[in-house]
């Protein structure tokens, strides 16, 4: 296979910065965060995968410890697989709770990212099934909730592209050995687990995390685009209706897949307290982006427009503008929470 990282005669300036950082004996995580916040180099799939895995605590930042660290995590995952997945898989899923979870996951796997051919591949579907099932058993407070299947897909794609050293859109699943897929599976499992730990209360009973985010979104929009806020109120459009999916699937369903990956560079690079508070500002900017159109629409037009926003042609550039504006907005709110309050 053609090596994606060596195809270019010269690395981009951005890729060079990453390489310089990642090749140090001990990687400076704060510096890596800062760099990844502005996006990983698209032409260099290994860099993105390494950065994600390191910031999500899967890949040790000390080079010498990387082989043993990864080995240990992979064995741990193997053990989870033996303990949780094998027994249930062996007896065809029955009426008990675990069986019901596995059945639901199996119903959703064929409905996961149907736009991406690799998720139609049986080996990938099985890998995804195990990741989701084991995650669900290990997180009984939420269990499997529809939409979490979506959230696993960026990790699978980014890690697989890195293992095969090709661009995400060039992944050929048949070219992957079993060992490669096992490595991807373990990595994707641990990354997903860490990533979701920030938003676990999105998926527990009553979905309090989502309710809070929606309330926060409403507050932000009220403060910075009162006209839009009033219009939505007038039309009887509820913020929960409008943004539930944005919160539940972290905008994954709203953008073309490459844009989602770019967005998640930044989410993964957000400081230690997690990306969830920043996400609300991204949603606010995203909503207000459409404000001129939205203000002309009645309830029904709003509903139809919002559930299928015209982002099909969006590229990283649009995402980066969104992120930059969200960053400014967040800083404003945090430095003086009442500064923008019209009351």
């Amino acid at each position, binding site marked *: 296979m053609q090596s994606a990282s060596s195809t270019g005669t010269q690395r981009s300036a951005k890729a060079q910065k990453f390489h310089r950082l990642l090749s140090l004996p001990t990687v400076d995580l704060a510096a890596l965060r800062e760099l990844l916040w502005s996006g990983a180099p698209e032409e260099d799939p290994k860099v993105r995968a390494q950065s994600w895995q390191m910031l999500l605590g899967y890949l040790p930042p000390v080079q010498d410890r990387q082989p043993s660290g990864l080995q240990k995590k992979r064995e741990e995952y193997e053990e989870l697989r033996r303990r949780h997945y094998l027994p249930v898989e062996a007896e065809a899923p029955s009426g008990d709770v675990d069986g019901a979870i596995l059945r639901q996951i199996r119903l*959703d796997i064929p409905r*996961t990212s149907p736009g991406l051919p690799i998720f139609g591949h049986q080996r990938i579907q099985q890998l995804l099934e195990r990741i989701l099932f084991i995650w669900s058993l290990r997180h009984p407070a939420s269990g499997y909730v*529809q*939409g979490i299947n979506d959230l696993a897909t960026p990790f699978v794609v980014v890690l697989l592209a890195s293992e095969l050293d090709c661009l995400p859109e060039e992944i050929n699943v048949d070219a992957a050995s079993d060992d490669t897929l096992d490595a991807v599976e373990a990595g994707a499992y641990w990354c997903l687990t860490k990533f979701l730990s920030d938003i676990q209360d999105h998926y527990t009973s009553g979905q309090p995390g989502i309710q809070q985010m929606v309330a926060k979104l409403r507050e932000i929009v009220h403060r910075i685009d009162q006209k839009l806020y009033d219009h939505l109120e007038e039309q009887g459009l509820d913020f929960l209706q409008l943004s539930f999916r944005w919160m*539940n699937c972290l905008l994954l*369903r709203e953008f073309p897949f490459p844009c989602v990956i770019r967005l998640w560079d930044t989410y993964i690079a957000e400081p230690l307290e997690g990306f969830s508070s920043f996400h609300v500002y991204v949603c606010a900017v995203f909503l207000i982006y459409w404000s001129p159109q939205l203000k002309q629409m009645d309830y*029904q037009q709003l509903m*139809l427009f919002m*559930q299928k926003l015209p982002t099909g042609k969006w590229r990283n550039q649009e995402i980066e503008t969104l992120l930059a504006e969200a960053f400014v907005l967040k800083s404003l709110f945090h430095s003086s929470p009442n500064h923008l309050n019209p009351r």
Partner: protein
Amino acid sequence: MAAVHEDDYDYLYKVVLVGDATVGKTHLLSRYIKGSLPKNPTATIGVEFATRTVPLAVGGTVKAQIWDTAGQERYRAITSAHYRRAVGALLVYDITREGTFKSCTKWMEELRQSAEPDIVIMLVGNKVDLVEKDPSLRQVYFDAAHEFAKLHGLIFEEASAVTSHNVKYIFEHLLQEIYDQTSKRREQQSIDNSNMVGGIQVAAIGPKNDSCDNSC
């Protein structure tokens, strides 16, 4: 109930699609609204919205606002808020999975609690195409569902989003039923004007084998 909002329709009905995850709600809706199955089907998250305006045989139109909901238990807190002011519901189960039929009792109770008290419910046994191919796949008998429907005052039909069998019928028969019941109530309250004729039918309804030649 039937509010006249704009010029292009006379009655506006809010209808919800409920039932366990993966019984085929989104496929039925897509088949009805677009005339085709979803191109890139994904599990419904929260609620999704669609509308269709249906002409009445006697003139005038009914606009249906249809809310497709996520079936998974966890989403109930979010989705049940959308039952409010619904005057009709399609309660869908999968005739090849008995569990989805058993859940109908629970769904019905929830609808009656959160929606309009006199909500009209259409019980739909979906995926009838599977059984036509292989009768041994059937887990819910027509008669059992029919009995259940009669007992609880629901309308009932089997359908298939894949073959379009009865798809148009289930939606439009429900709309007609809502129309009939609301006009009956209006007559009783004698608010309505006196030249209203009873037995108004929604246009172009045949009970079986609609080929779904929707041009929208």
